[in-house]
């Protein structure tokens, strides 16, 4: 057998070996879904603190892609629901229909997350998303009831969860006193949330948002009650927890003087 023949034979064997030795095509499952969830957690936190709308949009895009790749991963669905809920708030000021569409989508992803693996934060966010969809009095009765049930489930799953108390506080802030809300009720929830945040050390990639936000809402509540000094102190504390918190620095603190 000549050199060329041996080379050809060797090549053929090599080719056969390479072809048969090729592992099955990789799938999305080869990605680390927990790492993606962690990337979403940190990315969303950063976008929220910096007030970077573009970064928030990018995180939503990433979360949508992740949900496509991991349709059965509870936290990935949770973070997409959370991101849409976050974006819906500021959108409401300019585009109510768009905001309601986002909230409806957030609701569906939070419900999906709960269906896979319920956590207190998903129920609490679902409660808030339902609450924000109340635009008419008829909605107030039906959605209000559902929202209350979801918050009850959140409390049952996380009786000492600071994010549940934070969302209860925000809800109370926006709810009339005759419906059990009001600024005093909000104050109680927010102060309790802040106490609970002191011992809050969720494992990654579980939700960890809300600490600085609790101080920001506490400040807003003090401001609404006419306690400007307490409000300022709360805003300062929010900036200590999350330096550069754009909403506090650029909106809430300047708004105190007005």
């Amino acid at each position, binding site marked *: 057998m000549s050199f060329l023949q041996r080379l050809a034979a060797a090549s053929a064997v090599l*080719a056969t070996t390479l072809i048969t030795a090729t592992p099955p095509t990789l799938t999305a499952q080869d990605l680390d879904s927990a790492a993606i969830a962690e990337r979403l957690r940190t990315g969303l936190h950063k976008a929220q603190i910096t007030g970077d709308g573009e970064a928030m949009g990018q995180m939503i895009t990433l979360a949508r*892609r992740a949900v496509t790749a991991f349709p059965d991963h509870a936290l990935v669905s949770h973070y997409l629901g959370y991101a849409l809920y976050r974006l819906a708030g500021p959108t409401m000021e300019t585009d109510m229909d768009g905001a309601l569409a986002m909230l409806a989508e957030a609701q569906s992803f939070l419900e999906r997350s709960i269906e896979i693996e319920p956590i207190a934060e998903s129920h609490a966010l679902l409660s808030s998303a339902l609450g924000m969809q109340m635009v008419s*009095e008829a909605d107030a009765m039906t959605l209000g009831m559902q929202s209350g049930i979801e918050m009850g489930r959140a409390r049952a799953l996380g009786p000492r969860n600071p994010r549940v108390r934070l969302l209860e506080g925000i809800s109370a802030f926006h709810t009339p006193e005759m419906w*059990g809300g009001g600024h005093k009720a909000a104050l109680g929830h927010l102060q309790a949330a802040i106490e609970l945040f002191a011992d809050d050390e969720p494992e990654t990639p579980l939700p960890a948002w809300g600490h600085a936000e609790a101080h920001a809402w506490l400040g807003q509540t003090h401001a609404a009650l006419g306690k400007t000094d307490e409000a300022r102190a709360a805003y300062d504390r929010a900036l200590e927890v999350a330096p550069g918190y754009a909403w506090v620095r650029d909106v809430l603190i300047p708004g105190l003087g007005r």
Partner: protein
Amino acid sequence: MPNRKISRERRRGEVVIRVATVCLVVVAASPSPPSLAGQEPSTVTGSVRDLAGRPLPGVDAFLLETLEGAPTDSAGVFRFTSTARGSATLVVQHTGYLEVRRILALPLTGPVSIAMQPAPVTLEAITVESGTYRLGNLPDVALDELEVVYTPGAAADPFRAIQTFPGLQSVGEGAGLFVRGGDLSETRVLLDGATVLSPFRLDTDRTISFGRFDPFQLRGIQFSAGGFGAEYGDALSAIADLESVDKPAESELGVTAAIGGLSAGLHLDLSESAGLRLTATRTDTGLLMRMTGRRDEFDAVPRSSDLSGGGQWMYRDGGSLKAFGLFQTDQVGVRIDDPGHSGIYRSDGRADLFSLAGLEDFGGPSLSWGLATSGSRKDEDFGAFRLEREDRLTQARARVDVPLGRGASLAAGTEVEHRTADLTGSIPTRSHDNAPGASTTVFSGDESGTRLGSFGEIELQPSNALRLLAGLRADRSTFTGRVTVDPRLSSSWRAAEHLTLTAAWGIFHQVPDPLLFEPTLGDPALPAMSARHLIGGATWEDGARLIRIEAYRKGYGSLAARNRDGIARAGGTGAATGVDLFVKEEFALLGLDGRMAYSFIRSERTDPDSGELAPSPFDVTHTFNVVLNRGFGGWLETGVAYRAATGVPFTPVHSAAFDPERDLWQPIYGTPMSERLPTYTRLDLSATVLRSLWADNLTVFFVSIMNSLDRSNVRGYRYSADYSERIPLKTPFPRTIYFGVTTNLPF
């Protein structure tokens, strides 16, 4: 030659090298996994267009395996770098378009071209059915549970709320459901699939009856005014399919105090999968009657006691058990002035219902089953008339649903009902002579029988725009000793996004009341009564507005009924033809929610006294209902309801002959159903204030002014002793203010 040999060797070598090279190229080009390590990034680029070739900006294109990607620019072009190598899945997503997935070999040798197809307009599966409305917390409801509560004049009675829908004739002021020319008994009421033998309380008089259920005991009601599916047997006209509430979401104690009664309810949320409810109610209209100046008419004012409870246990995902129990008593004693006798009519009733229903969902096929017993007892007494009647219905049923794929499903089921009816009493031989001591027919009957029914039904939804339902049921009752076969068809076609056309046809049978088989006054050879429905309709629904119009024709055969002397008459026929219109709309400008129902009907059936065909006693030519609700700030709900209806027909007495033997006048009746009561109208107002008095509390203060214009509607006539004078019997509901409060205490 050697050169030739060398040359041949070289050529062979070149061929072999070429083959080897091809092999290597093939190896290199064969699919391999994307790899992130140690690779130079390559560019993934392409363009996205719609089917018309127009570039689509803002489309997200990414690799499923790495999540690397980029949106398209204004020219529909995407470009991103990836370290992946080998086979990878490009995913292209855009709102309003179908997702595209494409397997790529990376690095790409050139740009990818993607064409996106618009997603079809997402339509919910069609749910509009002929003659059917849903109320409560069910999908596609026409009224949710609070709208039921807020219906002015309905006194939070779901049956009275149903009366505001089209196809129901306004016959008296009771809660009875007289549907499209049919008698009250032609509407079958079910709870969790079990027949409710006696769905109304205080039903001694059409004018004061109430439903046995309050809206908070029910998750929802599916009400069908005709053309219903083969699942439902033993009903000629309509089905009210009630579903009890699921497990409570929270533990709480609820209390309601109103001018007419007191109620307390306990909800126990035992776990994520189990919960119980218990309610006790005492109703006493004494104070209400005093307020309306009618206390003197009663020897015993209408009063009732209720105890009900239920629970749900979801023992696995897709498996649940639901139990419901109800025990009620009611009493009334009212003065009646008849030409033959003036005295107190007394009624003492009680009813019970116990139901156990199960669902086993096997992730495709499912099995639902139920066991139930429902009973009632009523003792009535007036002059020579005395009746003690006790009924019981014990039933078992099972239904299997099997999805066949591609929008087809099959359902089949069977039910067996055992019915007993005991009757003891005496009724006047001549209806006008009802004084104590009058000639009577004394009887003591004990009728019992079993009905076995089975059905099969196939549902086809070849698209979200078309739904076809074909079913067949067969029943055999030992009362009639015969088998009846009922084919039924219905179809719904969404002709446009908001417009659905419906049609239904079917044959329906119902076994007459067991006591019509009693040999003394009845006919043991009665066959099952029959009806044939033909319905066509159109529904427009665009979210803010629901408009439904339906026309129908109903033919009756083998009707059995008692004449005024209590004798059963068989072989009756009849027909009903009509048009129903329903409009529900939210008026954004005024903040009003409103609904309007109008029904037109011409119905006739054999008059059991004369044997002639005459307008049916429920032939209310025009029935008009309008309900408007307005909320203020989420804490105040106000409502107004107006009802107007043609008076019901009746057979007048045109003269009388004196009977010296009994020393009383004997009426001589005119043409059957030749006169009508005056037109009926009523305006009801309501207001509800909602407050939260403590955390998670909802306290509701309600006030309702029924018949606020104090209209004296006529519910019938009585005659003077010699029948020379006709005296109107006025409404039992003069202007009445009803108020109360309900609150809850979570724990």
